[in-house]
């Protein structure tokens, strides 16, 4: 049975992906900040058929503890790790990060720097194993900088670019790296945004991530139409784009 590491396991999308692994009888190591929420998700996955669940409390911005997490991965799964999903992130208030440098750096640290650090740790592990699948949740927001969301977008763009390079490096070792680019998803992260038809259901997004990891896909837009939408948005010349209010 497969072994799975989920970082950011209390995110709605990550939990739905975890459920897909659990019903297959996977063994999971769940990582998140909030112990009560993490335990509730662990119980759910256990009741749904997971073979074993371990938990690890971590604030991803606590870089000093990344090594301890890697040790926990080794001791929990001494025979190797099959799947790793990095799924945490925060959606900063653009007005705040546009004016406050500390807030901008914090948002970037959470959404990009810490992800890059954890991916680097994981790359070493997977490279040695010569097998496995890594997936990281980026965003369509990372495809082009927009005035309404460029700090978050820059962080996600950094993650996408980093993952792209890592993918080429890991391909030589039989390890897949999947960049997940969801559009709008109806989760706590977007609780304050009025919902329209563009919002995807986290259960669908989680199922799609699970499938992409199993197949070792490269870049996955969820839902798929975002690939076309972002293709158009990326194609708009800068002199036009800067006049648009996106």
């Amino acid at each position: 049975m497969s072994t799975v590491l989920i970082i950011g396991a209390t995110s709605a999308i990550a939990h739905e992906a975890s459920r897909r692994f659990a019903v297959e009888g996977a063994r999971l190591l769940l990582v998140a900040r909030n112990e009560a929420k993490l335990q509730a998700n662990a119980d759910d996955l256990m009741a749904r058929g997971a073979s074993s669940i371990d938990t690890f409390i971590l604030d991803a911005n606590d870089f000093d503890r990344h090594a301890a997490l890697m040790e926990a991965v080794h001791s929990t799964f001494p025979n190797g790790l099959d799947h790793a999903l990095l799924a945490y992130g925060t959606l900063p208030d653009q007005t705040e990060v546009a004016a406050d440098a500390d807030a901008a750096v914090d948002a970037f640290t959470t959404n990009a720097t810490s992800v890059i650090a954890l991916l680097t740790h994981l790359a070493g592990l997977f490279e040695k194993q010569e097998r496995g699948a890594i997936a990281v949740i980026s965003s369509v927001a990372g495809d082009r900088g927009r005035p309404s969301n460029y700090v978050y977008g820059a962080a996600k763009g950094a993650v996408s670019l980093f993952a792209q390079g890592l993918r080429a490096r890991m391909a030589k070792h039989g390890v897949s790296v999947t960049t997940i680019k969801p559009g709008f998803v109806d989760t706590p992260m977007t609780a304050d945004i009025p919902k329209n038809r563009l919002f995807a259901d986290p259960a669908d997004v989680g199922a799609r991530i699970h499938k992409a990891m199993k197949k070792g896909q490269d870049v996955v837009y969820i839902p798929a139409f975002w690939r076309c939408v972002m293709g158009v948005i990326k194609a708009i010349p800068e002199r036009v784009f800067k006049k648009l209010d996106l």
Partner: protein
Amino acid sequence: MGKPTAASQRAFQSWGRYPKSEPTRIVGIQDRSSLPEFAGGKSTVLAYGQGRSYGDVCLNNGGTLLSTSALDRFINFDPDTGLLRAEGGTTLADVLVQTVPHGWFLPVSPGTKFISLGGAVANDIHGKNHHVAGTFGRHVTQFELVRSSGERLICSPDRNTELFGATIAGLGLTGFITWVEFQLRPIESDQIDMTTTRFRSLDEFLSLSEAANEESPYVVAWIDGLRAEGRGLLMQGDHAPAGPGTSLPSTLPTRKARLSAPFDAPGWLLNPFSIRAFNTAYFRKQIARVKRTRIHYDPYFYPLDAIRDWNRGYGKRGLLQYQCVVPFDDSNATVRELLSRIAGSGAGSFLAVIKTFGDIPSPGMMSFPRPGITLALDFANKGERTIRFFHSLDAIVREAVGAVYPAKDACMSGESFRAYFPRWEEFSTHIDPAFSSSFWRRVTS
């Protein structure tokens, strides 16, 4: 986070799509450890699960709805004993997917699996096995109720017994149900052995039903609502034993709705002629008087779940359902009178159901089922005309000391409600001051 199961749910309406409701605020409850301050807001609150009740018990017009669709985690499932504890927003569909492979089935199941556990408790739902199993509330071992004071209370037949009795069938008014623990029933396969018997009169139904209640745990009948004599098909069923050709599913299938009603049907589609044609065809499709079949539990219990958004078939104005129960009496004159009124109105629908309730009491003080005959019919909403017609049925049901089911109701008067639920005053002392619903305001104003 569970998927919304219907278009009406995404719009925070009820299944009948009447009355229309505009909550001022929707709060998505994400996990059971951190709940919002119910009493902090200026408006009243009400939990909203899957929105499968027909009328306004799940609505809080002008108030706040606490959406529970993300509150869908299992907390504990023991495959040896069949005891399940799960968060209040968990759907019965989700429960079945997890427990059937282990040989456990719902103790009581309504006509759709797309309802939440919280809703099952709050409406104290019943099913085809009421004569042997009673209501859902009877199988609840405990639940957690969060009051607007911040108190978290475990309610069971032994603890906080008054709130236990008030919350089961309490229409969500006594507080917020974070989780429910209940006992599943064992099964040996996922198949149902079913026998369908044709009947041509109410008397024939009653004698068939009496015999079937002795033989089978599941008994229900379809009745032709356009004919006063009460012709129909009685369907009795039981879980098939393990054996050649039957077993428990080993994998975990996700059965998707194959059909859906993507838009509102025009209002003229359901008319006395089309319904009459359907009912006659349905009654006659079975040539033999008695027919035996074996089918999967899903089409047996939830035939309409295969058609997503079937409520849209009743057009923009939605549908109204009338479900009542009247006590048995010597000649069952009340049911005859109801059937003749319904047939006379010419408005009866495809989906008319008749069943006898047994005498197993519910722990819920406001529970709807009581010994007698229950009738349930869908009607296209024709506005005032339909409502007036329902009130004329109410007069008959009140006279017979029967009751109408709040979970399906959008029309009953306060006077009728108080007659149907004589313990309403005692119940109202247990209502949480921060909680209210469109239904409650309607029947108590």
